[in-house]
Each structure stands twice: as C-alpha cells, then as structure tokens.
C-alpha cells in the first residue's frame, strides 16, 4: 500500500507550528543580538592563556573582577601557538600568557605584543604520567620503549609547548625516532592529560600542575628534567583596546595573593 510520505505530511505540520516557530525565531535573534552586544562591552578584558593555566587563571580572573567592579574577564584557553595564531589574525585579545618562550618569541617576531610588558611569571615542570590503575612499570624515559607501552600522549610539537619540551627531552635522549610511531598528538596539554586519564594511552607527557588536577585518575610516573627551565611569559597585546586594564591585570597576577593561588596549583616562581 502506498503510504503517506513524510514529505506530504509536512505542510500541515509546519502551518500548525508556524506561529510558535516564528516566535522562537524572534527569541533566537534577540538572544543572538543580546549576546553580541554583550561581547562588545568596553570593560571586557580578554585573556588568552595557555591551557595549563585553565584552573589557576579562572580563579585569578574572578579575583580580578572582584577588585575591579564592572570589569569582566573573558578567558580564552588553548595551546599557546593556537592563541598566537588567533591574535596574529586579529583576535581581540588584551593579554597573552604562553607556556613557553618560543610561542612568545613568535608573537614578538609577528609584532603583535607590547614587548616592554613581557616578563616570565611562573615556572612549571615536565612529568611523565600513566593512568592511576596502570600496571606497567614506568620509571623514566627508557621505560617508554617497552612493548607494553603502545601509545604515548604528547602535545603536538608544532603548536603545543608541552609537546616541544617533550620532543626536546626525547631528542636529547636519542629516542624520538624510535618512539614516534607510538606518539599520539594532542591539541593541548589538557587533551594529552585526558587521553591518559581515560586509559587510551599508557603514558603521556604533561606538566606537573596538570597531573595534579586529575590526581585520582593519573599518577606521576617520573619527573622529566628539561634542558631549559619551563618558564611562562606574559605580555599585553599590542592592539589591545584596554591596554591600561591589561597592564593592571599583569600587575595583579604578580601580586602575592595571586602568586599564592598559582603556587597552590603547583606553579613555581620564575
């Protein structure tokens, strides 16, 4: 028997709901306009910060809003090079905090930051982690060659600072080429952390501060000394429309109270 197809039934259905649909559309448009006018507010301070700073900067942003009533701190977290690419393409960021000097040097080379404001504000450590319930013995880099380690999560060295630090130590140990087939590129340090926490990779390179966020799900198997210390630079973006506010944010981050927050999350002094 030929059936009434879905298509034939549709007109009746749509006319019945036409009124409410139009209202819905109106509400959606109003929402969108409201949201975009909200984003254009002058007192918004857009802080583009390395993914590893997610939790600490969320706290600091709230504290900054408390002492600067009327100011809204808009946080944008991603791998440092991703943030840089956004800023270089004209993203309206006011502050850039990167997880390594290379990303900040690129920003300087592309002439997008106010170099006078650049300074290192925290220090971090590279660690090798495994899922909390892992039975594979990992004592250091050499353990990674074991057949039981099938996948190793690592930030993509092309865009993620933690990946560059990890590649640096593996290169120096002469293990990069041999381990490359096992490496799973992550888009940020937090994705590498997530891969290990889910048990999808047997090991991964993250910062000690990230490992501390997921204490119950990952364990630190070994500290990995890096050739150069892991320092985080911060600077005001050159095209910032809130340069004065951005500078006061940098001062605020350096204040003892905020340094306490950072050290609570495991960041060291530069």
């Amino acid at each position, binding site marked *: 028997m030929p059936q009434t*197809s879905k*298509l034939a039934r549709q007109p009746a259905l749509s006319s019945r709901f036409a009124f409410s649909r139009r209202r819905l559309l109106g509400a959606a448009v109003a929402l969108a306009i409201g949201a975009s006018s909200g984003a254009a507010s002058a007192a918004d301070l857009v802080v583009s910060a390395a993914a590893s700073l997610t939790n600490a900067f969320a706290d600091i942003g709230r504290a900054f809003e408390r002492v600067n009533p009327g100011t809204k701190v808009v946080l944008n977290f991603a*791998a440092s*090079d991703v943030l*840089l690419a956004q800023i270089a393409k004209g993203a309206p960021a006011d502050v850039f905090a990167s997880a390594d000097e290379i990303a900040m040097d690129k920003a300087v080379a592309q002439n997008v930051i106010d170099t006078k404001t650049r300074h290192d504000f925290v220090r971090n450590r590279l660690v090798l982690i495994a899922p909390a319930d892992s039975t594979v013995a990992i004592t250091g880099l050499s353990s990674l060659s074991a057949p039981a380690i099938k996948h190793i999560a690592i930030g993509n060295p092309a*865009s993620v600072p933690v990946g560059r630090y990890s590649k640096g130590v593996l290169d120096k140990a002469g293990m990069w080429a041999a381990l490359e087939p096992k490496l*799973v*590129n992550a*888009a940020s340090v937090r994705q590498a952390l997530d891969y290990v926490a*889910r048990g999808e990779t047997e090991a991964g390179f993250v910062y000690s501060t990230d490992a501390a966020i997921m204490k119950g799900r990952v364990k630190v198997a070994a500290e990995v000394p890096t050739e150069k210390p892991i320092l985080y630079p911060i600077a005001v973006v050159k095209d910032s429309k809130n340069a004065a506010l951005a500078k006061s944010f940098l001062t605020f981050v350096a204040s003892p109270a905020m340094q306490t927050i950072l050290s609570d999350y495991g960041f060291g002094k530069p």
Partner: protein
Amino acid sequence: MFDEAAVPLLLSLKVAGWATVLALVAGVAFAYLLARVRFFGREVLDAALTLPMVMPPTVLGYYLLVLLGKRGPVGGWLQENFGINLIFTWQGAVIAAAFVAFPLVYKAARAAFEDIDTNLERAGRSLGFSELKVFFRVTLPLAWHGILAGAMLAFARALGEFGATLMVAGSLPGRTQTLSIAIYEAVQAGDDATANNLVIIASVICIIVLVVAGRVLQGGYRRAFRY
C-alpha cells in the same frame, strides 16, 4: 607540497570510501525496514537514526569515545575477546565517519523506497518471485537513483568529517590524520602555506563530487533531496 597533501588525501579517501560502504549497507537495510514495515516506535527509531545528522559531531565523538574506548562497554569487550583496539586507528575513523554519513544514505533510501509504487513489487510476487528476489530485481533497481544520490552525499560528508573523527581517532600523522584534520593542525600551528594547499584540494574534491553526483543522477538527485 605534493607529499604532505597526498598522505592525508589518500587516507581521507580510504576512510570516506569504507565509511560510505558501511553507511550504504546499514542505511539501505534500515530504510527498507522503516519504509515497508509498520511497527510501534517506528518514527522514534527514524528520529534516532537521523540524529547523527543534526547532533554536534563532538557529541557523537564523545559517545563513540566512551563506548569504543578501552574502558568502554564495546571497546573493552572487543579488546578482551579479539584484541581489537579502535581508538587512534584508521578503522576508528571509519566508524566515526560512517555514523556521521549514515543518515544521508538512510534518508535518501527511505524516501526512494516510499516513492516506489508497491503494485510493482506485488506484481513481482504474483509472478512467483521470492521476497529477496523482489527486493533485488524490483525494489532496489527502482530506488537506485535516490540511494546513489544519498551515497554520494554520504561520501562527501565522510570526506569532510572532522569533529567525531578527531575525538575517536586522534591526529596521528600518516595514520589517522585525514585531510580535514591536517588542515586544522596546519591552521593551529600557524602554517598558512600548508593550510592553503590543503583547503584548495579539499574544495576541488567536494566540487567534483557534487558535479559528478548532479550529472550522474540528474532527476534522482533532485527527487531524493527536494526537502
């Protein structure tokens, strides 16, 4: 330039090809079932089968990651019984792309089946054809245009799959880094030269697929997607 584009391109074609095959088989089977058999909850099932088309790919990717992951119910079972791991493999990318592409085949095939005059199928039966023979000799040839149109779109969609694939298969150069993921990585790294080359290739392929689909299918193409 050619090498850095050729590897992800070939991988994308392989993944999209297999995904289309899976989506085609499953899509035609479900479409036939829902077009010909009335049962309780049929339209709810229809909505569920269409879901991957409207759901954010990241939501689908998350479901698949949780299900197929080493600690997931399906992934754990596969690992334990067959030693199969799908996460971070090109086969995992195929499954993600197949789910995303499935509704395109399913929708087109169901519309095509419902457009067929069932008297023709009845005529086949009256001539002594078995149900299987009716399906392959009468129903399928009549619905073929619509199904092919759906399959072409499914292929194009699978070729462009990004969100779910990235979550399930990751971004392993040469192994799971498909064309769309390679573009994403190039942009993330600020490598505009590579990104430019790759997006041009991707755009040209999509145009070719659409033009070929339009040429080959003509009427059938429009019939299947008039809504």
